[in-house]
Structures are given as structure tokens and as C-alpha cells.
């Protein structure tokens, strides 16, 4: 599904990723852990194709196609979707508008109202996109858009950050559904999740985990093993390992 080879990425001419190799198979979910500034968000943004993130070396392949130089919107239309950690507010554009566009793109036919109901967002549909939304509402707005987009590769940037305990199970279950539902149809969805707290692992059965430090993957293994290692020992042993 996704293959990354020797990826180097700079932001504003400052190198952030320094040679990432990563492969995510169809239907697999990987988690990314690492200290702040290690490059986790940069890796997701680079896969997504955000213009600020300049690939200086290496390649990104998605569904066998080299997408390294492909534009952001082309990648989205190819099946890559992102749940942003801090999405911007877009005044004048309604949540319903963008959800509806995504729900009917790429041959999708997703019932927006039903998804909004599941996420307790019915009353937010006519509001300006993300404008004045609380932390939990922002995450649910992101999930609504993502479910409507129906991507094959789901990138989740700290989906549990800023979310209260009431919202976390709702969000966790929805993410689990997002990652699993296409298995039912025989089409496999893959995911990469950046997480600090690991709460999301209570809802999502992740396959593999990676630790990113200073723009490099320094350790990989089973998701739970990697998370337990970090929970018990922090990133200190990873740095020694590096």
C-alpha cells in the first residue's frame, strides 16, 4: 500500500527527516512514537503532500505508484486522507459542504447525515468549518470529513490530543470503524497513527510500531511492544539503541 524509501524532507530549508524507510502493507495499522520535534507530523505531512514539506531525497510509493512529486489534491483523490492535529477554521465554508463534496468524490456515496449523527455533529453541519469548535468537536469534524472521504490510507496525527474522556471512546470507536470497515467489503484500509498517550490503542488494534528520533526511525516492532517499552522507559533506551 505505502512504501517509503530513504526519504529526506526539509521545511523552510531546514532538514527534518533524514532517511526514512517504511513499508505499510494493505490493511496494516502502524503507530509512530517519538519525542517532540522528532519528525512524526512531518512524515505524515510529507506522505499527504503538503507543499511546505519539501522532499529533497528519496521516494514515496502509494499503491505501486511513485507519488513523490504528486500534488496534495491528486494524492487525496488517489486515496490518502489525513486527520489533522490542528486543522484550520475556514469561515464561510460549512462543514456540510466539504463533507458532502468528499462523500461524493472518488465514486463515494457516503450518507453524510448518518455519519454526522454517529459523531454527534448534526448541529455542526451548518456551521463554518471548524470555526469556534472545541477540541473534541475539531476531532469529530476531522473524522466526519475523513469517513466521508473514504480513504485507503488513513493518516491520524494525535487523534486523542485535547480530547476529554467523554469524546475519546466515540473517536476511538469511529477510528476503529474507519480502519476496519473496508475489510468487510474486501478492500483493505491502512493507517498510520501518531500518538503520545497511547489511549487510541485501547480502541484500535495496531500491527506495528516505530520510534522516530531526529528524523530517523530508530526502532520498529510490534505496536504494543513498542508502546510498552516507551511507557516504561521513555525514549532513553531507544537513543542508546540508535
Amino acid at each position, binding site marked *: 500500500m505505502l512504501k517509503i524509501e530513504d526519504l529526506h524532507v526539509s521545511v523552510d530549508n531546514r532538514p527534518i527527516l533524514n532517511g526514512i524507510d517504511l513499508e505499510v502493507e494493505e490493511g496494516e495499522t502502524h503507530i509512530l512514537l517519538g519525542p517532540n520535534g522528532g519528525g512524526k507530523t512531518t512524515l505524515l505531512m510529507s506522505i499527504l503532500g503538503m507543499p511546505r514539506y519539501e522532499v529533497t531525497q528519496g521516494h514515496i510509493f502509494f499503491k505501486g505508484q511513485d507519488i513523490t512529486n504528486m500534488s496534495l*489534491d491528486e494524492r*487525496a483523490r488517489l486515496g490518502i486522507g489525513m486527520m489533522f492535529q490542528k486543522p484550520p477554521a*475556514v469561515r*464561510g465554508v460549512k462543514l456540510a459542504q466539504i463533507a458532502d463534496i468528499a462523500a461524493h468524490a472518488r465514486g463515494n456515496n457516503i450518507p453524510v447525515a448518518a455519519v454526522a449523527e454517529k459523531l454527534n455533529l448534526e448541529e455542526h453541519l451548518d456551521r463554518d468549518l471548524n470555526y469556534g469548535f472545541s477540541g473534541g468537536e475539531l476531532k469529530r469534524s476531522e473524522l466526519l*470529513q475523513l469517513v466521508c472521504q473514504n480513504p485507503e490510507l488513513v493518516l491520524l496525527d494525535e487523534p486523542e490530543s485535547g480530547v476529554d474522556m467523554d469524546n475519546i471512546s466515540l473517536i476511538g470507536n469511529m477510528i476503529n470503524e474507519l480502519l476496519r470497515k473496508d475489510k468487510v467489503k474486501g478492500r483493505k484500509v491502512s493507517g498510520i497513527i501518531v500518538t503520545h498517550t497511547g489511549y487510541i490503542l485501547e480502541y484500535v488494534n495496531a500491527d506495528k510500531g516505530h520510534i522516530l528520533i531526529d528524523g530517523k526511525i530508530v526502532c520498529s516492532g510490534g505496536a504494543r511492544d513498542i508502546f510498552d517499552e516507551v511507557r516504561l522507559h521513555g525514549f532513553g533506551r531507544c537513543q542508546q539503541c540508535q
Partner: protein
Amino acid sequence: MSIGLSYEEDLKAKAKNAINKKAAYGEDIDLSMFEEPDEEETVDELSKLPREIQEAAIASGIDPTEASRSGSFMQLDHTVIYKNIQKAYGDKLEIMDINDAMARYPEIREKYWWRAVKVDQDKYTAFSELHPVHGYFIRVFAGQKVDKPIQSCLMLQENARVQNVHNIIIVEEGAEAQVISGCTLTPQVENGLHLGISEFFVEKNAKLTFTMIHNWAPEFHVRPRSAALVDDNGVFINNYVLLKPVRSIQSFPSARLIGENSTAAFNSILYGLGDSDIDVGSKIILEGKGSSGQAVSRAIVNDSSKIYARGALESVQDDSKAHLDCRGILMSPKGMMYAVPELLSRAPGSYLSHEAAIGPIAEEEVEYLMSRGLTKDEAVSLITRGFMDVKILGLPKMLEDYISKMIEATQKESM
């Protein structure tokens, strides 16, 4: 009679004195450059007008079938070619040529004529008084709620002419009405001048929503002069939509809220295209106890256009409040936008406020929408369409949808 003559003489004298008085804002227009238009034939149905005239009218919000309107008025060049009130509304309102109205109701001249707008405001008001005019007289009778909009269309089909109109709308006590006024040109008109005097009188407990849609040409000049007087509990909503290029337009309509708890809202949607020089403002004067107002402006500056978005709030009443909200998007490095909010208070208890912002379309927002699969053009279009939010106009859904489609068409043409 002698009082009437003296009022008229006084108006003429003031107009003569002001005939060379430059307007406070906007390019000074040489009025001698334009001839007066010819007379035209009247018609008995709007739908019988030539196709290009109908199309131009439709583009400025006019429904030639009249199915969705309570009444219609149309002036082509210098002739009132059509006026009609739908049967169901015959006892609710009247629509007349302003000259016929003053002949039938002589009291109009002293009671309303130049009572909201000053005859000697500038050379354009003076010219209008000193030259033959037409225009509409619309009166909604006391207590009548007119649920379908009244439409008026002022159109020019000749080059290098000055169209000179003077309109009066009276909404009597407890009445409600919406007027949609389309001012436009046939496709062959390249240059000319439109002078439009409009005086609005909103009586006690009455409500008037006046929506003006302008469709001009790249070499055409426009100088509207409008003002409203609003009585106790009266509501005046003034909407202005400009989506086509114009050589220059300068307009600064005002509302004097003289009645207790009277309110006014000015909303404008401006799209600067080509070399358009657009200077549009609104002024709310708070005089009545409990009066309040709001002026909202949304402007997009494209190409080499210039937009001056002015807003003025003036208060002499302690128990009053008003707010200005002006936002602009500068899409072209050759364009210019100047937001000019002015607050003037002579009443310690009055609260006046404003917010103004001019900026580009945020790249972050465009990229965010692109990450959902929209192309860059689609994302920019969605954002600008949302920015030009027609809901601010407070119109019925049918008109709202109509103006939304016009904005969409303008965006497609400009991208």
C-alpha cells in the same frame, strides 16, 4: 400653493448653486460628456420585451414572468415602459412613475421630495433636480405585508447617455415590503452615467428590505444618492450587490434612525474586476432612543480594481448602538482595497464599534480543502463563495439562491 412653489423654488435655487459642487468622494465626472436618453415605447408585458433586454434584466435580478413578484416597474433609457401590480396585491401597494405620482398626490413634493437626500449634496443631486427625471414611486399601504418582492429595473440601451432617476419608496405604518432593484445596461452599451436618487421612508412599525443589484460596463460611471428615514420600531435593510466591472461607482447611502427602537442594516457584496474604481459606503445616524444599526461589507479585489469600503456610524442618542464589519480579500497584487471605518459619537451612553480586516486567502485553508480532494481552483472558489456569504443579506431563499448563482458565475469568469 405658494408654499409649494416656494419649496420648489428653493430646491431649484439650491440645485443651481450646487451644480458644480464636487462630491466628497470619487472621481469627478464631467456631466456635459453625456446626452439625455431618448424616449422609448411602452410594453404591456415584460415578457414581450426583446430578448437581449430581458436577458439583461434577468441578470440583475428581474423576473420577466413576474410569477414570483408582487409588482414591477421598468424604465428603459428615459421612459417608464412598464409598471404593474399583481391582482392579489392591488389593494396593498401602488407603483407609479414618480411624475404621475406627484401629479396625483401634490403633497408628495413637500413631504418626501428631497426630504431624505439633500438636493445640494453635490453636482449629481443638483443635476437630477435641474433636468427632467423619471423613476418610481412605490407606496405600501398601512398594515399591509407584501410577501412577494416588488421589482424595479432601470436600464440603459444607448451609449454616452445619462440616466437620471429619482425614486421614492414609502412603507406606511405597520407595513412590510421587499424591493429588488436591478440597474443595468444592454450589451451594446459601453459608456455612460447613471444618476439615481432614492429616498426611503419607513414609518412606525414598518419594515423595508431594499436590495440593489448593479450590472454595469467597464466604461460606465455610476453615482447613486440614497437615504432613508426610519420611524419608531421601523426596520430598514439595504443590500447592495456589485459583481460586474464598472468604470467608477461612488455611493454613500445613509439611514437616519429618528424613531424609538428603529433599526438599520446595510450589507454589501462587492466584487472588484478589471479596472473598476468602486467607492461604496454606508452611514447610520442614531437619533432615536433604543435605535441600533449594523453595516456589513464583504469585498473581493481582483485584477487592477480598487475598492474603498467606507462605513460611518454617528450617534446623538445615549441609548443606542451600532457596529461596522468590513472584510476584504485582496486577490491581485495590482488591486487595492481601503477600508475606512468612522465612528462619531456625541452621546456618552451610545456604543459604537467596528472591525475591519483585509488579507489574502489563507494558504493554509486552501491546502486544507485540497487535502480533501479539491483542486486549488475549487478550494479558492469555495472559500471566496463562502466569504461572499449571501445570508448576510437576509433575503428570501429564492433571491438568496439567485444571488449565490450570480456570485458563482462571476467567480468562474474571473478565474
